[in-house]
Structures are given as C-alpha cells and as structure tokens.
C-alpha cells in the first residue's frame, strides 16, 4: 500500500524544500538532510502512537530524543530501522523513500530488496542488546561484514578487532555473550553495529536495561564515538545529562508529537512549553 504523501513525493522533485521541518537557525550549515521524516504517523491497531512527525536529521548530527514513556520515541527509531512500517507519511534516507520504491515509473510499496539497500545506511543498538548468544564476541561482530559486505575473514576480523578495541573489549574476542556483564554486552552490540559503518545509528534506550553502575561505561563509549563525528546519531534516552553533553539538538516528544526542539542549553535551561517544563521537573 502506498500512502498519499509518497505519491506526492514522487510528483514533486526530490530537491523540493517544501515541508522543511527545521527552522533555519537550527540547520547545520551545508548539506542535505540524511534522514527526513515527513508527516509520519503510526498506529498499532486503533491506537495512534505517532501523530504526524516532521523531522530532518543532517549528516553527522547528534540528536537526542527525550520524552515520557509511551510517547513513541522507540517507534520512531524502529521505523527508521525498518522494524515497523509507518501507517502514513514518508521517511526519506539520502533523499530516497524508505518504505516505497519506483516500479515501471509508479510508486509501489518497498520490497525486501529495496529495504535491504536502504538498511545499509542505518544501524541500531537495542535496549536489550540482542547479541547472538551462540556466537563468540568476535563472530557477533564479523557476521554481518562477512555475510552482507562480503569481506574476507581476515578483513572482517581486522575491522572487528579495531571496533572491539574502541569499545575496550579486545580481550574478550573468544568469549560467549553469556559470560559478559550487561555493560560489556551492550558495548559488543555497539561494536557490532558500528562495524557496518552506517550513516545514521539509532541508540534505543541503550542503558535502560543496565545496572546503574554499568551505565557510565556504555555512555562514555558512545561519547567517544560521537566525538569522531561522521556518523549521525539518533539517541533515544532517559539520561538527561548525557543528552545535554552529546547532542547537537534535543527533541522533546510527547503523546506522539514533537512538542519542542532546540539546542541542548535552550531545552534544558529555558524550556518553553509547559509539557517540557513539567517533564524536566522530574529530573531535577
């Protein structure tokens, strides 16, 4: 099924600036958005979870998505990773619709092949890690480079070891996930996603399932990666300090809509909407 918005997108030119969600003051200089959400809606049965999201993400931009539970933050990230299909609206990656493709000059629903092409640009780290329990740490990280990117064993392992060194786990190569702590598991999951070199990475509440004393090690790894810069990040998080420190832009969502967005200083020190003020009260 193709939505109205997607038809419209095909009628217009790809370079159309109409519907730009972001005010010019917040737009990073130069470059086109790597990801655009345009009027994206999502309902689960009768229950609307996202009620019209417009969001542009620029190359290398770090965006923190905050908001109360049930506000649809995770759903937004899952749609970008193609784990959920929007009910309406369009998601564009590099100017190309994620959930639609062209066939004989007509827009049709994306097939598996199109989705696979698009997925190469997106990565995701999950709240509950989802490491492959039957593979060693090294195998977890080399599986996708070998099967998807078709790298040789040596190339894949070299890359994997470099990533595992980055997350501080180069001494755990041949250990199974069941022998790791939660924080170590999550760091392996980060290395596993990084090794595919996505243009944008979704971090979905990656510290929410961790013991409090393990949160720090995971956040500092993410900060390190953020400093390197090239990869855009969508950080869905409840860690306000972290959001403030890492993000270029903070987005506050509630009840399926974006309520307020801005630079971290503005969002955290001078929130405009009452909804955000009430939300931040709880973190003081």
């Amino acid at each position, binding site marked *: 099924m193709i939505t109205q918005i997607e038809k419209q997108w095909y009628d217009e030119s790809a370079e159309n600036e109409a519907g730009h969600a972001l005010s010019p003051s917040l737009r990073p200089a130069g470059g086109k958005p790597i990801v655009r959400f345009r009027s994206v809606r999502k309902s689960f049965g009768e229950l609307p979870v996202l009620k019209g999201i417009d969001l542009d993400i620029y190359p290398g931009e770090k965006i923190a998505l905050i908001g109360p539970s049930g506000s649809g933050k995770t759903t937004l990230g899952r749609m970008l990773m193609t784990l959920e299909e929007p009910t309406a609206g369009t998601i564009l990656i590099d100017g190309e619709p994620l959930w639609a493709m062209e066939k004989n000059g007509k827009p049709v629903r994306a097939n598996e092949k199109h989705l696979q092409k698009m997925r190469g640009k997106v990565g995701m780290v999950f709240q509950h890690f989802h490491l492959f329990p039957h593979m060693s740490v090294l195998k977890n990280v080399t599986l996708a480079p070998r*099967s998807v990117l078709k790298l040789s064993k040596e190339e894949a392992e070299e890359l994997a070891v470099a990533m595992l060194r980055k997350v501080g786990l180069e001494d755990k190569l041949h250990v199974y996930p069941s022998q790791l702590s939660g924080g170590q598991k999550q760091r392996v999951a980060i290395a596993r996603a990084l090794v595919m070199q996505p243009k944008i990475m979704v971090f979905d509440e990656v510290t929410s399932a961790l013991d409090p004393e393990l949160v720090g090690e995971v956040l500092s790894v993410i900060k390190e990666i953020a400093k390197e810069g090239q990869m855009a990040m969508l950080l869905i998080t409840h860690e306000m300090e972290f959001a403030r420190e890492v993000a270029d832009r903070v987005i506050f969502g509630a009840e399926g809509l974006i309520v307020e967005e801005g630079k971290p200083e503005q969002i955290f020190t001078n929130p405009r909407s009452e909804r955000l003020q009430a939300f931040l009260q709880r973190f003081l």
Partner: protein
Amino acid sequence: MNAPWLDWLPMLLDGTLITIQVALLSAVVSIVLSALAGLGSLSRYAVVRLISRAYVELFRACSLLVLLFWVYFALPFLQIELSKLMAGVLAIGLNIGAYGAEIVRSSVSAVSGGQREAGIALNLSGTQRMLRVILPQAAVRMVPPFGNLMIELLKSTSLVYFITLSDLTYEAMVLRNNYYVWTPYIFGLLLLIYFLISSCISLVSRLLERRLAVWR
C-alpha cells in the same frame, strides 16, 4: 536346561539389521518432512502454511498401523506398489514427521523476536537470518524432543511385523513358534535389543545437545 541362545542369534541379528534399516530410513524421511512442514508452518506464504498445517494435522491424527495398512494394502489399488520396506519407511516417516514438524515449528518460534530484529538491523537477508541466527539457536531446543521422537520411531518400527516385513519383532515371533517353551526368554531378549538400540539414540542425542549448547 540351557536356552539354545546360539540357535536364535542369526535370526535375531537378521531382524535387528532390518529394524535398524527401517529406523534409519524412516528417520531420514521424518526429519526431512519435519523440517519442510515445520518451517513451512512459519512461511510468509499462506499456501505453504496451509499445506504444512494440513500435513501435520492429518498425519498426526491417523493411527500408524492404519496408515501402514493403507500404504501397503490400499495403494496398490491406485497402481502404486511399494516394497514392504518402502511401505514401512513411508508410513512411519509420514507419521513421525508430523510430530517432528511441531518440534521444529515451536523451537523456531521460541527464538526471541529480538534476534530477528538484530539480524534486520545488521542487514542480513531473510535466508541468512534463518541459517546463521535463528536455526542454530532453535536446533539446541530441538535436540532433546527429537531424541524422544527417534526412540518413539524405533519402537514403532515393530508395527511392520503386520505387513510381514521380517524385522526384529517378526523374527522373534517366528522363533516363538519354533521354541514355544522359551517364549519368556525370547521376548525378554527382544526387549533387551530394543533397549540397546534406543540407548544408542539417547547417547547420540545427549552428545549432540552438549555439542550444540557450548555457548549456554
């Protein structure tokens, strides 16, 4: 008075070989059918799901002995003549495969959805996700119930006696006719041989489980 064990052994050995032959061949048939129908039950294509479910429901419900009679005595009326061995293998394979399909289906669906999602996030194809991520984890769950099922299969091979295939049970019945007073010994020996073969199946199953579950 000593039992004439040595007179029995050649016949029992012949019977044992036939039983093992029937068991191995029908194990292959049933495992192939289990995999096809089990994975077919989870297919995204409704037709494949329907065929798989119909097979499971139909052949799980039908008495193995009746199925065996059907394959051996009724199929010739449809111009399909099978040897005793093939008839036995087909009937047992079809029946046990229907149970096995449920094991495959439930083990695969028991692997957490997060594993599938992690595979998608890494851009693995559907086939790669199944072969590299889902099946290796499902296999560990499948081994113990499949071990049970294979022992069940071994025991059900004795039903081929009724289509006069000269398996272990058949030979024991012949011996019983010739050495009537030794009946308890003959059947005792019969039980023992079945027990020994099924012990081998248990052993293989246990070794396989240990090998597949090193990561747990």
